[in-house]
């Protein structure tokens, strides 16, 4: 996804796909991406998934950045969790097989924080989704109009380039 595409999705998502469930899904996926290191194929695939699904992208991206800020704290949980999984004797054949597969090393599965982050993200996915959905209700009721009337969104919408790029409007 090119940077312009992400920006386009971001602005568009502020007004469309704002159903509380879509906001909840966006926040839950963004939460998982935020927990794991970004310089690997897993994070990139999750990001593509966030863009490809009909979920609220801006909320996903905002959640991702917010969670990234608390990573030093989150790593204290995800690192030992991942280490325990990666060094568990019964799972050794699985990890060894994955380690010997082409492309798999690019996913960074053998990084303790990535594996622990994925697991923690999966475990918290549903609670975060529900919390996100509740936030979606609140956003639609109180915040959406204020966001749409903000100077940033207005200036973006007023630009000719923006008008040309988003033919269908936002």
């Amino acid at each position, binding site marked *: 996804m*090119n940077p312009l*595409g992400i920006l386009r999705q971001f602005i568009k998502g502020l007004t469309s796909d704002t159903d509380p469930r879509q906001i909840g899904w966006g926040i839950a996926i963004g939460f998982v991406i935020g927990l794991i*290191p970004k310089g690997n194929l897993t994070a990139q695939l999750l990001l593509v998934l966030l863009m490809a699904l009909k979920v609220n992208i801006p909320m996903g991206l905002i959640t991702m950045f917010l969670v990234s800020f608390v*990573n030093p704290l989150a*790593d204290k949980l*995800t*690192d030992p969790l*991942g*280490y325990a999984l*990666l*060094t568990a004797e019964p799972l*050794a054949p699985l*990890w*060894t097989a994955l*380690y*010997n597969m*082409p*492309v*798999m*090393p*690019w996913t*960074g599965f*053998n*990084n*303790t*924080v*990535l594996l*622990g982050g994925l697991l923690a993200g999966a475990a918290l996915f549903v609670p975060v989704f529900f919390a996100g959905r509740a936030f979606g209700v609140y956003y639609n009721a109180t915040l959406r109009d204020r966001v749409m009337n903000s100077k940033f969104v207005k200036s973006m919408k007023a630009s000719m380039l923006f008008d040309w790029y988003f033919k269908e409007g936002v």
Partner: protein
Amino acid sequence: MRWSYLAPRLTLIVLVWAFFFFAFDPILKWGLIKGMEKGAGARAEIASVKTTIFPPSLAVKGLAVGDAAAEYTNLCEFASLDFRMEGRPLLEKKFVIDRAALAGLKFGTPRQTSARLPLAKKEPPSEFSRKLQAESKDFALDRAADVKADALSAYTVNPDDLESVKLAKELERKFDEDYKQLFEKADMQRYQARMDALKAAYDKAKDEKNFARQAKDYAAAAKELKKLTEDFKRDKADLERAMAEAKAALKSVEEARRKDTAAVMGKMKLPSLDKESLGRMLAGPAIAGKADKAMKWAAIARRYMPQNATAKTMAREAARGRVVHFPKDKAWPSFLIRELALSGELNLDAPLAYEGRIEGITTQPRLYGKPLVADIKGAQGRRRLQANALVDATGDTLEARALVSYSGMAVSGLQLGSESSVQVTIGGTGSFDGKFAAAGEALSGRGTFNIAGASFAPKADAVKTPQLRSALLGAFSGLDTASIWADLGGTVKAPKFSVGTDLAAALAAGFSRALGAELKKAQDAAAAKVDAALEPYKKRLDALTSSKEAELKEKLGAGQQSMDSFADSLKEKASPGKIKLPKLKL
């Protein structure tokens, strides 16, 4: 077929293609330039970067990295670097290059634009370089001609200003702490508990009725006794070594005393005429800059050179979390260039083309299992260049050795010394031989530059006295060779350099001829003043080391006696023939 379905997907493919076609190479080029600028602390330029995906390859053209220390000079530049990566290892995030080619590599080339980066701090010369330059510049000659032995009589030496006194004080403080630790280590109380336990074990074994159990207990006790004697032996050897090191440290006070004498002479504007000082004065400035550059290159190489395979692997681990490795059917190092063909030019005034190859450049040498080998050759007319290097990091410690030989080069305008003292410009035919080695952290090596058929043009404008000036100018007549050398020692973290030249002897003879015994007397007077100031501290240090050493030896002797008698008493307790006790030779 629905165009509404196909169009967005085709657009995506076109966008991805366009990104790689138009944006990827410029982004990579920008990243490379920024990375090099950060590493070198100076501007870097690249003419072009071209990548291909099928097959994975990279071509870099026209790269130049500026020198942070010289604004309009490049640290190095090359015309092209081409390599192809192997596809299969790339799928496993491993960068394996079978053959790479680096062409047109040159060092110290001039540049049209400034290499200075905005806001970049100017790199100061190293401490070693600064000292050498200062020593040559401040070499005193002003009053050499009218020197009298009593010139120093009015001069007062403050002990606190002397390096030798500072060192003696520092050693005294250090010895106090070290000896305290050594005494603790030599204290037999440390072994008493183990000896008591061992005695009890032997007593218990002796009273044991069951023969098989008794033999087993005796065997266990004998094993413990052996371990005890070995521990004692090792501690004793450590103590003796520590004492020897303390004695060796006293030699450094003597070295500092010589330098203090030279410094006192310098403060009185009188030259120090020992060959070492003269050698440093002459060869220092010429070697300081080159040594600085060599140290800079060594630091860059060291940054990318693993001490061993494990160290590098740990160092490149992820910024977050830990990376757990698993057994591999076929393991490639993370980065490997099997063979790099190298060509370029040396010596820009009279270029000498060279070519060669470097094999086994890798971040995981233990995994690759082969050392890095470099072999470079060049020849043009009478000039010959030969360089070989071997860096073996496949074991626990890094072992490296390099040989460089460059002969037949024309030397003109090589300046030794300093304008503020004596300067000599040398011409002739030069040859350089260098031999360097590293074993773990320890460094060693010597580089010698010999000039044959040498012509000397000395200059001593700073010397006002005609008699002395003429003696100095004549000191080089009759010479037709010159040799300058630099020795390397110490460790990677704290390298030590020393420089010298055989011309120092000629210069010393010139001084002696001109000044006779007067300067020698002044030198003796300066040495006497330094000795007098140092004496109380040196005496105290000598007394401290002698008394502590004697005390420590006595303690060790008593300890050994105690251990011997303990072993003998156990021997008596153990029934002969049942168990063989270890022989104690401590």
